[in-house]
């Protein structure tokens, strides 16, 4: 028994390692997605204060990510922009100016009633809006997380993104569903 023990430890370790990958929770996946958007979306130059100013990821409403998002973006730099996370508890009209400082804004489910209001307050800015609210693209949102079986899929409203002068990479579109407004009246 004593001789077998080290192997048992190794075996346990071997089982544990892939298990950790498999057991990644929904929101850590979504935080990774949020961060990855930064790499597949192009902002106009005036969206940043300068070349090295941070790329802000805003979370508006009840934060579902917790630590996961902070862990994902920690120490990360995209282009020359360090990534920071800004949190807003709930939407207030006076906040609009601050929300516009975000490059990516995640609108939490809690803000569903105010979604239209939020989106209209962002009109004319280059903020990539992301949410899990149903029919988010129909409301004028840009990217919606879409649970499709095991995989968390994406629905992209290309028109909205274009209007905000955002360039969504073809590669991102390749792995997303494209929102078509005429089909969903």
């Amino acid at each position: 028994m004593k001789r077998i023990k080290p192997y048992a430890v190794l075996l346990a370790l071997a089982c544990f390692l892939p298990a950790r990958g498999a057991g990644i929770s929904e929101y850590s996946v979504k935080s990774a997605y949020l961060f990855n958007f930064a790499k597949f979306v192009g902002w106009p130059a005036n969206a940043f204060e300068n070349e090295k100013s941070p790329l802000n990821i805003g979370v508006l409403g009840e934060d579902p990510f917790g630590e996961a998002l902070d862990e994902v973006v920690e120490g990360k730099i995209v282009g020359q922009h360090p990534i920071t996370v800004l949190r807003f508890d709930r939407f207030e009209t006076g906040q609009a100016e601050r929300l516009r400082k975000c490059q990516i804004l995640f609108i939490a489910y809690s803000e569903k009633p105010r979604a239209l209001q939020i989106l209209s307050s962002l009109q004319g800015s280059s903020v990539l809006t992301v949410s899990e609210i149903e029919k988010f693209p129909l409301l004028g949102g840009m990217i919606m997380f879409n649970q499709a079986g095991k995989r968390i899929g994406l629905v992209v409203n290309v028109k909205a993104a274009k209007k905000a002068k955002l360039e969504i990479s073809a590669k991102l579109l390749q792995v997303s569903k494209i929102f078509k407004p005429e089909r969903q009246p």
Partner: protein
Amino acid sequence: MKIDFKNLRLKQKIILIAVASASIALLPACLMFILYERETFPKIMLKNLSNLAQLVGDNSNAALSFNDPKTAQDILNTLKTNPHILSACLYDAQGKVFARFPDNQREIQALGPAERVEKNEITPLSAKLYHVILSGRETAGVLFLESDMKEMDSRVSSYTTMTILVWVFSFLVSFLVASRLQKYVSEPLRQVVDRMKDIARGEGDLTKRLQVHGTDEIGEVSESFNTFVGKLQNVDEMKLGLISVVSHQLKTPVAEINGYIENMLEGVAGELTPRQKKYLESMKGIGQDNYRLISDLLSASKIERGVIAVDLKPVSIKQVVEISVRDYEASIRRKGLSLRLEGMDSDFMIMADKDKTVETLRNVLNNALKCTDKGTISIRVENEPEKGVIEVEDTGIGMSDETMEKLFTKSRMLGKEAGRAGAGLGLYIARSFMKLQKGDIVVRSQIGKGSCFRLELPKLIEGEGAQA
């Protein structure tokens, strides 16, 4: 096939050397060519594979980032269009298999952290490459590609074929060039060799010189050979000069001695005892032989130097035969042979130099006597429409075809056999004299049975004699 290089003709040697050296010189180049290709091609192949990995990796970046194995699979499936890709596998950032090509059932191990690095491996059958896919600064996944080596194999074999073709081509070209150029070396040498053989056979004309091409070794050989032939010519001339002077100086005294012997035998110096007579008879024989030899030598040297002249006059053929036979009748009888004369009842005239015809006939008779031990020597005169013929037939030892072939040439002149069988001058002079008189001498003979020499001379044509 074994080539006996030593015994090849010079021409063949030169071609062989040229072809061999061209082929051998080209061999390392050809080998280098193939080896270089073998060395560099894997690198080119890896580079191409790596470019492909870069492209596919870049394309699957989003699929990895947003966890879309279906799209990743679609991307990998595009590798179908590349017939050399054996397999491909896309691992995610954690090393788990994300998508694979071809999409078969075989289980693939996940990649450990240590394996998620850029690396490659080449074996004779395949090239394997791991490519780390970066998304920004983070690792998005790893792409594994495996390509077969068929491209390299086909390329190496086409290079090999090409090299062999180049080799064969240069082989042919060097062969053609050498075949054309070799004659500048072998041709002058062959001329020298041919001339040497002629002279060694005793047929070459010593006054002729080789044409000298250039100043190289072959030119030197030709030139030295010419010098050598010049010296030979000098020696030959000296020999002829000596013979001519000596024989000329001896001819008159020998003739005088012969005259005294003749007189004494005729009793001019008083009555002879039988013993004295016998001695004088022997002396007479020896004297005649000497005289003939000296005349022959003188004639030969004149023929050789080309200073002989003939004096053609109408001559009675009967008279010529009588004068010639007179000296031999006694010797023939003494040897126990019988002498037969035919066609001597009627006489006619021929156009000839009397002395030379007599000397010719004497030589032929002398030979017949010398070569016959028993039987008959017949002398036949024939009156043909345009020529007069004298045939001398014996029942002697005869001669072989080889002897007959060289009979009238000067190759036997004063040669090895000289002295034993005779000086070897007789028939050479005979042929020369006959030709000078627009006649001819021919022989037929059978070994052991006897020989027959036939002298032909032009007859006197009516009207010509009146002038003479």
